[in-house]
């Protein structure tokens, strides 16, 4: 056995001795396999079980209380204007970084011709980026972003300003519903390389418990709810 295998065997056998079990026990194996297959839900807080429209209102309220700016855009044109306005209001260059997300690319960008684009993963000098969240959980105002060429993870962390677009129909009540959507999209028992729940702009309270925004990630998070 290599050292690696030996270390593995050492830890597992110590655990089995402590538990007074062997590695091959049908009932224990069945209990574990069953739980992994059924992945039963625990208690879902009542606030995460509301109607769609109440869920959207809760998401917006939670995000606002956690320091994000939120715009409700009934049409794609309004969403595009809201994205451009975010840069303008904060006196940023009218330049945005984004990935290959088809939904974002299909937005009517003619409504904001002044915007200049960069595509791909974020770079150090990028000031603002746009991502799409695949789902959001109203219960704590948490947007679910998944890694990949469509929405590179660095977009959410390197630039000072991050804009996230979420379709109203992708807002669900609780975390469990969001994960069920990911299971449908990416398969059961697997996840994309990174799933990031974002619930506000970057912050720290390490010094004297005083909250300061923009610790290492974005100082500003703007969420556009489309639909």
């Amino acid at each position, binding site marked *: 056995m290599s050292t*690696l295998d030996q*270390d593995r065997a*050492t*830890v*597992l056998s*110590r*655990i089995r*001795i*402590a*538990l007074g079990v062997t*590695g091959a026990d049908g009932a224990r194996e069945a209990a*574990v396999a069953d*739980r*992994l297959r059924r*992945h*039963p*839900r*625990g*208690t879902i*807080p*009542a606030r995460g079980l509301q109607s769609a429209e109440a869920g959207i209102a809760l998401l917006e309220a*939670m995000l606002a209380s956690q320091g994000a700016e939120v715009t409700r855009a009934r049409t794609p044109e309004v969403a595009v204007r809201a994205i451009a306005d975010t840069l303008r209001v904060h006196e940023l260059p009218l330049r945005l970084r984004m*990935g290959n997300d088809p939904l974002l690319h299909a937005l009517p960008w003619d409504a904001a011709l002044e915007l200049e684009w960069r595509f791909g*993963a974020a770079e*150090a000098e990028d000031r603002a980026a746009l991502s799409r969240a695949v789902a959001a959980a109203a219960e*704590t*105002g*948490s947007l679910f972003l998944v890694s*990949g*060429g469509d929405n*590179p*993870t*660095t977009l*959410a*962390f390197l630039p000072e300003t991050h804009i996230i677009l979420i379709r109203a129909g992708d807002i669900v009540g609780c*975390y*469990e519903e969001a*994960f069920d959507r990911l299971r449908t999209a990416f398969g059961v*028992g*697997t*996840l994309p*390389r*990174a*799933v*990031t*729940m*974002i*619930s506000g702009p*970057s912050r*720290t*309270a*390490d*010094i*004297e*418990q005083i909250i*300061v925004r923009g*610790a*290492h*990630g*974005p100082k500003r998070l703007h969420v556009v709810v489309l639909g």
Partner: protein
Amino acid sequence: MSRMSGGSDDASPQSFKEGASRALADAKLQRALLNVKRGFIAKRALAKSKLPEFDQLRDEGRAIKDHTLAHLDLYLEAYERKVIGCGGSVHFAPSAADARDIVLRLCQDAGAHLVTKGKSMVSEEIGLNPHLEAAGVEVAETDLGEHIIQIRGEGPSHIIAPVIHLNKEDIAEDFARAHRGLPQGRSLATVQDLVAEARAVLREKFLGADVGITGANLLIAETGSSVIVTNEGNGDLTQTLPRMHIVIASIEKIVPTLEDACTILRLLARSGTGQEITTYTTFATGPARAGDSDGPRQYHVVLLDNGRSEMLGSEFRDMLRCIRCGACLNHCPVYGAIGGHAYGSLYPGPMGAVLTPALAGIDHARDLPSASSFCGRCEEVCPMAIPLPSLMRKWRERDFERGDPPLAQRLALKLWAFAAKRPRLYHGLGGVVAPLLARLAGAQGRFRSLPFAGAWTGTRDLPAPEGKTFHELYREKTRSGMR
């Protein structure tokens, strides 16, 4: 210390009493500690009040952990299969030294000159930074609090708020000294100034790092994911930008499914910082996939035992439910009075008093299980319902049974036990001693000093008995009809 090292090496846990005295006399520390009360306690109470299901979730969280611990071997194997299946590697580390060596070897294989780190108590526990630095690898802590203690050369004083013992003026001095190449006389007066400077300094490190090391708040067997919760975003930059991501986590961090993770996440931030949820909660699963334009090319997980499997088979198994939220520290009157460093152990407060003797051996932590007023608030606020006071008592019993408490303590307890087992003798002695003490104490009814009790009477008076024993008073009252 045998198994624990890192920030706790220089301050022996034996010096708890000295550390506590120093802490109580330290005016700057006392000012900083007010922030614990002002911040965490009120915020947790508010967050809990906004979630009516909190207590039910707490019961479920406890059940999840108990189930997982009872099947720990099988969940670790299931988790390992998933990590390998998505292109990552799992390394089992029986001891702290094994874990250090594995991480160093991985860094060397990656040709690493600069390593960035997210906040990780396990990495402190194994003494990772000095080990990497001794081999010529530069280590940059990126959590703001961890960055501050790294430049100060000290350990964290709180498991989720490493610099709760400092005021902004202390930190301004550290930055002025340690951040070279910046203009002299720049303003570091506000917390905003300090955060902005740390952001700029650490941004360079993020962009230049070869390897990123993070801990894990949870590991998920269903998907092979490691979960980190942060507010700053430093953990995500650490695990996204470098070409290798190393996760270092202890074996009890595992939960079965995403649903189980959801239940625990609902408890974690609310109990710790009092937030509904932290700003970022990231599930990392393996290295970058085909078509990804960012993310690490290699993903390794180091699973640390270091005494935990032994706890699993002992009366301290409940402690393995701990999710490191810090609520027991925040609500502990002893922690609130002296801060974390006085404990002389990496893990302070009630959770540290139970965990440290298990990891380092009771020889190295004898004072800790007694460093408590046993008020029980820690157990009350623990989101995993760990019976911390009774676990501390078990350590005290074990320590006493080993038979080497101080001679005076043993003799006194033996004498007391001898009398207590003989009611007539006990009452007889009580009837003599109580009036005697009352007479000696005089009109004031208290002692300013007493032989063998200088530690008590040094800071306060000892109230004296009023002259009659409880039994005498009870008899008198029942006779006169007052019950």
